[in-house]
């Protein structure tokens, strides 16, 4: 559990501090660096230990995209200069910790900035789904009767639909060309619409049990309105919702990746994990430039962190049913 929390906190930290951690601007295209491999940070050379340094890359063969380290001119990394924690002095060329993509952009910097978009839209989507789900589930559970039946029918209906297709069709039915911030809000909204039934089902179950308790009966007898009653009953669902947050994160993160991969998500020059995968999922380049798959590895780490964290918090069954709805 500690490992999962540390993993997630670490990734969130990387995303949060992307502007100071990224050695390069995410959209900057470096000339002569297309598909440049990751640079290694060296700590020792022939004369023994030194401050961390790299060998600048030199384009050996433009057609074969071969690069070679210029071992004659080691460059020491500079720390905390130019608004970045770690960078190279200008003469050394760009610092490419995870290599460069087809346009010569720094994959590591794009991964960090991409995390802001991908994790951000996921977080907002999860929040929306929980609020919507708690409202609907709380209402259904505290009112009961016909309202409950209808609301839960709608929830069940949406639950059976495969999430990826639901988001795809909803997104496909909306305007295709939008700005990044519009896409951000729109996708978060779609995720909330697609994911609220998961929260609503659980909240309704908790609230429906809770409303038979004495305090709820007393509140009703005292003339509390359904909304006031729901306000009293909802806190009981806190435990369920805290697990639900974790279960929805992987699902929505994968949804962002899928939708952006299909070209219906963030506009292409913008770095999100999905748009980066779209550029990486080229089978011919995969063996030559596997570092382009870094966002897939990042996705894996987030989902793994969630699994490790949930493992101890929820019974295995709940966890696995949660997994069943992913992507």
């Amino acid at each position, binding site marked *: 559990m500690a490992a999962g929390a540390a993993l997630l906190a670490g990734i969130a930290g990387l995303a949060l501090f992307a502007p100071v951690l990224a050695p390069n601007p995410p959209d900057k295209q470096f000339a002569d660096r297309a598909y440049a491999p990751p640079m290694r940070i060296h700590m020792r050379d022939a004369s023994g230990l030194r401050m961390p340094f790299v060998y600048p890359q030199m384009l050996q063969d433009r057609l074969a995209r071969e690069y070679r380290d210029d071992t004659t001119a080691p460059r020491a990394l500079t720390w905390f200069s130019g608004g970045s924690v770690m960078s190279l002095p200008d003469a050394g060329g760009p610092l490419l910790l995870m290599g460069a993509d087809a346009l010569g952009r720094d994959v590591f910097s794009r991964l960090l900035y991409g995390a802001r978009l991908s994790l951000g839209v996921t977080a907002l989507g999860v929040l929306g789904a929980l609020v919507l789900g708690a409202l609907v589930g709380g209402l259904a559970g505290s009112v009961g009767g016909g309202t409950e039946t209808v609301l839960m029918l709608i929830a069940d209906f949406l639950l059976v639909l495969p999430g990826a297709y639901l988001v*795809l*069709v909803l997104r496909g039915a909306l*305007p295709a060309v939008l700005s990044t911030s519009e896409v951000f809000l729109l996708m978060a909204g779609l995720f909330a619409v697609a994911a609220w039934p998961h929260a609503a089902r659980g909240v309704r179950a908790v609230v429906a049990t809770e409303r038979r308790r004495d305090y709820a009966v007393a509140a009703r007898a005292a003339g509390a309105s359904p909304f006031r009653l729901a306000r009293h009953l909802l806190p009981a669902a806190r435990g369920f919702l805290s697990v639900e947050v974790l279960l929805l994160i992987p699902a929505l993160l994968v949804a962002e990746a899928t939708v952006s*991969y299909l070209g219906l998500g963030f506009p292409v020059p913008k770095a999100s994990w999905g748009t980066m995968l779209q550029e990486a999922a080229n089978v011919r380049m995969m063996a030559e430039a596997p570092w382009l*798959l870094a966002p*897939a590895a990042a996705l*894996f780490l987030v989902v793994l962190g969630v699994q490790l964290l949930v493992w101890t918090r929820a019974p295995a069954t709940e966890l696995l049913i949660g997994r069943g709805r*992913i992507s």
Partner: protein
Amino acid sequence: MTRDLAAFVGGRLAAAALFVVVVSAGAFVLVRLAPGDATAELFLSRASPAEIADARSRLGLDRPLLVHLRDWATGLVTLDLGQSSVFGRPVSDLVRERAGATARLAALALLVAVAIGLPLGVLTGSRPRFAAFVAPVSVALVACPPIVAVLALLLMAVATGWMSIAPGSYAVPTLALALPVAAMLERLQSQALADALSSPDLIAAAARGVPPARLVWVHAARQSLLPVLGIAGAVIGSLFSGSLAVEMMTSWPGLGRLMFDALTGRDLFLVAGCALVGAMLIAVGNLAADIARAVVDPRVRGGA
């Protein structure tokens, strides 16, 4: 017993039919209301307004939404799903080919997942020492959603040549869908089996002298089937959901690609047709899971 089972199946069939109709009509209405229509390409190719108007009337886009929907529904009754504007072919032909491809992929993946996951789960559930090796692998695989798994497998295939990545090759798409599900089934089966083994009736059976192998593989395995069947619906949903990314990345000619082409081309009838067969596949899968549960557990039949 057979009568209440029949009533149960009948009720579920009616619900499934309603589900299929609502899903496809919903997709139809959504795309019809969406900005832009199938004549966008004509417009871009500088067709005359008269030509565009002609195409719109041929596609029924000049009719009011409700009339259009009614016409489509009338066709549906006679199993006429209309004509695809993107492919210029009857929707029913297209959809039949592609749904078959997706169903084959999903069914094969399910088979592989069950064949690996369940026996492994019984083993890990009954032998903690064995579980120490398998569980970490399972947790890692559970954390590999199909979109990650397919990329990892493609990379592995390209780097080692162990698997073919030619279009139409089954290895990569099947494994990408099956492995996360297999891991999930393994974890769940393991937990369910461990629970079953500590239940009073199995302790009594052990005390009676039932041999350990029979105790695990017959008595406990049967008891643990129910919680595993409980997530069958979720598994079917995740197979379908995951197949979208997997189909796009491995060029699998399935329903996911067709739906994507239909949506981006604003191909109204094709979107509705895809939604129709997709919903059918899901309904059939869920129905099969429900029936299996009703057969295993009489309590389910009582309408619970």
